[in-house]
């Protein structure tokens, strides 16, 4: 080995990494996953995905297309049929009208769509506003894009709605993008038309672009989801992100899409075509089948989630935890502060002592301290058993 190569190998590989990647912290969910996966006989309320399997006809459509040899690239933006079906679905379901020709881009999951949007918009130093507690990826991918994530607190007393005054307080001349995620993971909070109006005013006043992640749109209980893009004047300022994971139980397919102004979509398309080229053709075939013939099954799944939502919220309150009523997604977000434990401590002891896995609220940002995310995308029996075990655990805590 030459002296030079010896010196090179002594140098830590970490030093080669881009500083902003080196600085990213591993997700709190990942940490907790490592802890939980070593344990046995666990009931898990920790999963962020449906417990249903993709409906059979959707899987079958994909298998059939493979048998017929549909294995090639599609156009970068996705097949025209799928884009047309998406446009029709959004118009019928959420009153937002997009032209399938140049306002819709099919992506590899909603996550790619958000990443593309940020990379297309952000210059180093731009600030990205994110209501929190929020989905774990928003801050890190904002950071990777070169921007600076700025969390806006939301509170249980407001049912975790985004309040205009809290948003206003965080806006600076550097603010450029606002990421919205309603219905919210992890809080289950939703926004109504009236809730949105003051937010839309601020967005206009401060010339912000909105990335609206509406992946849980279909999982809205007791009312219709209001898309931010449907508000007066907001369509051109909004990149609407959605996908098939949650509504059609298709998480592993990684099928998502972004809709917005043709110039924004074109910018995102350029990055998309040089990175992933196009979303997998088999996934696109399945997604098309889901939109064409899967709406009834989707409704049945939503009905089941709604039933389990009532069960878990009632159950959590019965065992003495405070829990606001989540109106969307499939998470309950009870407060555990009264137990005197931190979120991390509570979740770890719950896992070790009661064999119930749930995610500490802190995994979703600083505002998550004092909370626990409990997914109810699991069977009624499992929820009942988990509540039983949690009840006993809390009883033991109280007895000291």
């Amino acid at each position, binding site marked *: 080995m030459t002296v030079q190569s010896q010196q090179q190998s002594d140098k830590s590989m970490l030093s080669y990494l881009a500083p902003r990647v080196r600085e990213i912290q591993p997700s709190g969910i990942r940490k*907790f996953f490592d802890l939980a996966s070593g344990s046995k006989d666990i009931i898990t309320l920790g999963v962020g995905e449906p417990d249903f399997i993709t409906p059979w006809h959707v899987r079958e459509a994909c298998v059939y297309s493979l048998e017929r040899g549909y294995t090639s690239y599609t156009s970068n933006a996705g097949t025209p049929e799928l884009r047309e079906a998406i446009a029709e679905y959004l118009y019928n379901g959420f009153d937002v009208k997009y032209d399938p020709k140049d306002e819709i881009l099919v992506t590899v999951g909603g996550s790619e769509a958000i990443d593309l949007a940020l990379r297309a918009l952000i210059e180093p130093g731009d600030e990205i506003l994110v209501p929190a507690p929020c*989905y774990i990826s928003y801050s890190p991918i904002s950071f990777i894009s070169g921007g600076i994530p700025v969390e806006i607190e939301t509170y249980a007393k407001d049912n975790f709605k985004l309040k205009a005054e809290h948003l206003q307080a965080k806006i600076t001349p550097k603010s450029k993008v606002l990421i919205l995620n309603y219905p919210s993971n992890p809080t289950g909070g939703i926004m109504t038309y009236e809730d949105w109006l003051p937010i839309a005013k601020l967005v206009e006043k401060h010339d912000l672009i909105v990335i609206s992640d509406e992946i849980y749109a279909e999982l809205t209980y007791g009312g219709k989801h209001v898309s931010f893009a449907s508000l007066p004047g907001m369509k051109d300022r909004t990149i609407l992100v959605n996908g098939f994971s949650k509504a059609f139980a298709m998480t592993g397919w990684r099928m998502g899409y972004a809709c917005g102004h043709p110039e924004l979509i074109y910018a995102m398309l350029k990055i998309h075509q040089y990175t992933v080229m196009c979303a997998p053709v088999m996934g696109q075939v399945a997604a098309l089948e889901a939109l064409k013939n899967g709406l009834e099954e989707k409704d049945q799944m939503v009905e089941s989630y709604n039933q389990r939502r009532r069960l878990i919220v009632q159950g959590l309150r019965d065992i003495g935890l405070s829990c606001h009523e989540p109106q969307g997604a499939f998470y309950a977000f009870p407060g555990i502060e009264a137990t005197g434990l931190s979120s991390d401590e509570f979740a770890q002891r719950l896992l070790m002592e009661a064999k119930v896995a749930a995610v500490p609220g802190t995994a979703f940002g600083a505002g998550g301290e004092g909370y626990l995310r409990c997914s109810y995308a699991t069977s*009624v029996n499992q929820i009942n058993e988990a509540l039983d075990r949690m009840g006993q655990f809390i009883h033991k805590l109280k007895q000291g």
Partner: protein
Amino acid sequence: MKPLSELKLKVLDLLKEDARRSPALLATLLGVTADEVSAAITELEEDNVIVKYATVINSGKLDDEKVTALIEVQITPERGRGFEAIAERVYLFPQVKSVYLMSGAYDLLVEVEGRTLKEVASFVSDKLSTLDSVLSTKTHFILKKYKQDGIIFEDPEEDRRLMISP
């Protein structure tokens, strides 16, 4: 017949999944009171919509395996009573588990259960075929049940999802 209320339909769906669910649990799931659920169940029972709370058994898991046959029966309908009289003669036999009037190549489909193959065979030859209006029978023994009443008998697969995910 009057269509069932939305509540009753939902109660039926939930009981079909698991008949042992209590009115209190059903009430929580549906966001109504336990009294409303109990009243709905009582009416469903009284109207003979809920006929029985039964257990679906995966007989393949039992040692004392019974023999089940599906028998296609061709019959001559009776003047004035059509297929009713003969159907009644057939379904009153305790060995007979179910009887359906069918369209197509035969008239009745009869499900018969017995302890042995011989027992089922003698029921068919001695009792069923000898009925006056029975023209012919064709017996098919069930070799294995994969699915019954919407329930797949294969051992349930484990949850493939990660224990914790975003």
